[in-house]
């Protein structure tokens, strides 16, 4: 890659605290999504290099880099690749998860729109490493232009002989196709995505036995990686795994793109070294601080499913450190130790103007709408959460309703086939636990005692007879 200094569009200059790697070309002056632009910048050299390497060496570099998946779960990418059964004889598939559906997250959008060849190059390397000859990019329906742009980029790459048969003159064949979703959060879940790609209702699969690395797309080994994760692979190959691992902090390596939204002066995307920036720095430095006259109330640090952090909390860590919300380094492990998760990098800031009941009601409605309906607790529970929080914000709830809201969430968490159960219940659980008094203050004590539905009580008695 050429190392000439990168100029950015006016008003789009990265913050000095940023470390632009994946987003190097986002908002870059004179940049476009064409293959020529990408090639002029040294593009596809890493793919060429990879195809001359031993597959295991690439996997080892990725393992050494410590790269953790950027889609939400933060699972080590190299380890995931290693789950393909060594005795496998079936075709292997690579799927790029570009469903970017976690509220608060909007990083992949910019890669797809502005730098599709970076993704394609990452996918060529990754597909080669896992021996996949067919790959799909699952792009959410709500990115219609992105789909067109990526399709065009694929055609360009194919024209150049970078995709198709015997790419770069090697004996490696690879086809990549864009597959568009149709508006379903559940398709961000990898087995739901696979079902969707098979043309079925995207009901997540039971695990065991359907672990994608063994029984994925068409019951063959399948690797599903996030857009950003696949882009990192290119840079890992360029830098070497060990060198890459020097970015960020131990076990939380590399850079990641933080997507900041909500009540800050400058919401947007910021690529930083993992763990090298604190929450306070994100808000005050990168985002220019809170809005004038406002104080911080709460933060959802890793996409809407992440448990909320309350502004006045302190976190005691195992190593003895005691952190305020401002001190939390933006990494995977500390965020988990503080009781939430770094997730997909979507940081949602809420100031003192926000009603927490209103916020949780908004999220309840999202999860109600997105529940696929397969598992009973989630299908039945997510509408109840929306219903109860509706009552609360309408002023028609009793204080007991707030506890019931939490109980319903407890009945979903960990009781579903996929992680949607957690995604749907963690926000409710954490908001109610941390802001119970505020939420209860919106309820009316004289509405208590209405809890039991007399009609059902009667009928259930009949049922027991």
């Amino acid at each position, binding site marked *: 890659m050429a190392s000439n200094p990168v100029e950015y569009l006016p008003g789009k200059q990265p913050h000095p605290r940023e470390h632009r790697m994946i987003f190097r070309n986002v908002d870059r002056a004179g940049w476009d999504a064409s293959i020529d632009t990408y090639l002029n910048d040294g593009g596809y050299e890493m793919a060429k290099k990879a195809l001359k390497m031993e597959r295991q060496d690439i996997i080892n570099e990725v393992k050494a880099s410590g790269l953790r998946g950027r889609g939400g779960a933060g699972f080590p990418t190299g380890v995931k690749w290693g789950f393909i059964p060594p005795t496998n004889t079936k*075709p292997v598939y690579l799927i790029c998860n570009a469903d*970017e*559906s*976690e*509220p*608060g*997250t*909007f990083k*992949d*959008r910019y890669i797809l729109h502005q730098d599709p060849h970076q993704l394609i190059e990452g996918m060529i390397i990754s597909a080669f490493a896992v021996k996949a000859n*067919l790959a799909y990019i699952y792009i*959410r*329906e*709500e*990115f*219609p*232009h992105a789909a067109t742009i990526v399709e065009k980029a694929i055609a360009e790459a194919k024209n150049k002989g970078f995709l198709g048969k015997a790419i770069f003159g090697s004996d490696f064949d690879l086809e990549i*196709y864009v*597959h*568009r*979703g*149709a*508006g*379903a*959060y559940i398709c961000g879940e990898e087995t739901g995505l696979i079902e*969707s*790609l*098979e*043309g*079925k*209702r*995207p009901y997540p699969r039971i695990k065991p036995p359907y672990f994608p690395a063994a029984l994925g797309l*068409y019951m063959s080994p399948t690797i599903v990686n996030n857009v950003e994760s696949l882009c990192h692979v290119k840079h890992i190959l360029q830098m070497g795994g060990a060198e890459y691992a020097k970015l960020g902090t131990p076990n939380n390596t590399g850079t990641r793109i933080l*997507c*900041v*939204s*909500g*009540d800050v002066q400058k*919401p*947007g*995307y910021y690529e930083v070294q993992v763990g090298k920036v604190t929450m306070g720095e994100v808000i005050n430095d990168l985002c220019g601080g809170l809005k004038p006259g406002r104080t911080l109330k709460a933060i959802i640090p890793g996409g*809407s499913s992440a448990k909320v952090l309350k502004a006045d909390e302190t976190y005691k860590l195992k190593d003895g450190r005691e952190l305020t919300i401002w001190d939390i380094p933006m990494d995977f492990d500390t965020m988990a130790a503080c009781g939430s998760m770094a997730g997909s990098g*979507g940081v*949602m800031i*809420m100031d003192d103007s*926000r009603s927490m009941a209103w*916020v949780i009601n*908004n*999220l309840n*409605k*999202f999860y109600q*709408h*997105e529940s*696929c309906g397969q598992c009973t607790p989630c299908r039945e529970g997510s509408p109840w959460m929306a219903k109860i929080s509706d009552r609360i914000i309408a002023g028609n709830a009793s204080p007991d309703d707030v506890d019931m809201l939490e109980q319903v969430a407890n009945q979903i968490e960990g009781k579903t086939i996929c992680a949607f159960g957690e995604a749907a219940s963690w926000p409710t659980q954490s908001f109610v636990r941390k802001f119970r008094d505020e939420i209860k203050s919106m309820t009316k004590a004289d509405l208590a005692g209405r809890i039991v539905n007399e009609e059902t009580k009667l009928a259930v008695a009949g049922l027991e007879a």
Partner: protein
Amino acid sequence: MEVPADLEARIDEAITHYPVSRRSAVLPVLHLLQHHFRYITEESVAWTAAKLGLEPIQVLEVVTFYPGFRQTAPGKVHVRVCRTLACAMAGSYELLEKFCQASGIDREAINHHHPIGVSPDGKYSIEFVECLASCGTAPVCLVEDDLHEKVDPAAVDKVLAQYS
């Protein structure tokens, strides 16, 4: 239902993207049909099933799962306003109201069961949708395929005017 030859050619090409299973092409075929016919009719479901060698129910079960497939006719210009948290914090509920007012759509008629409201003149339709993944530029909406960012509720007329 008449599927033009060039559309069918594009559909046939899309099916080739799935060498292992034609069933995988359900979504792409439906997208192409919706793009052309504006929404998915029963005929489109039957046509897709026949094209892919499926039972019609195997297409219908998919169509009805995804809000991205419209099952009723939208207006000539379809507007999707983001409802989810970041946009809601930035005023998307108000934005929806304004779009409805500007296009003469009954806001009350848009709900979970009837997600799409169409203006009496059939010119516009409005849908309140979940996260469009542009939270940093909230509130946002998709008008047809175009994303509009940091939309000022006071300026919805200007947005719509671009599509008249």
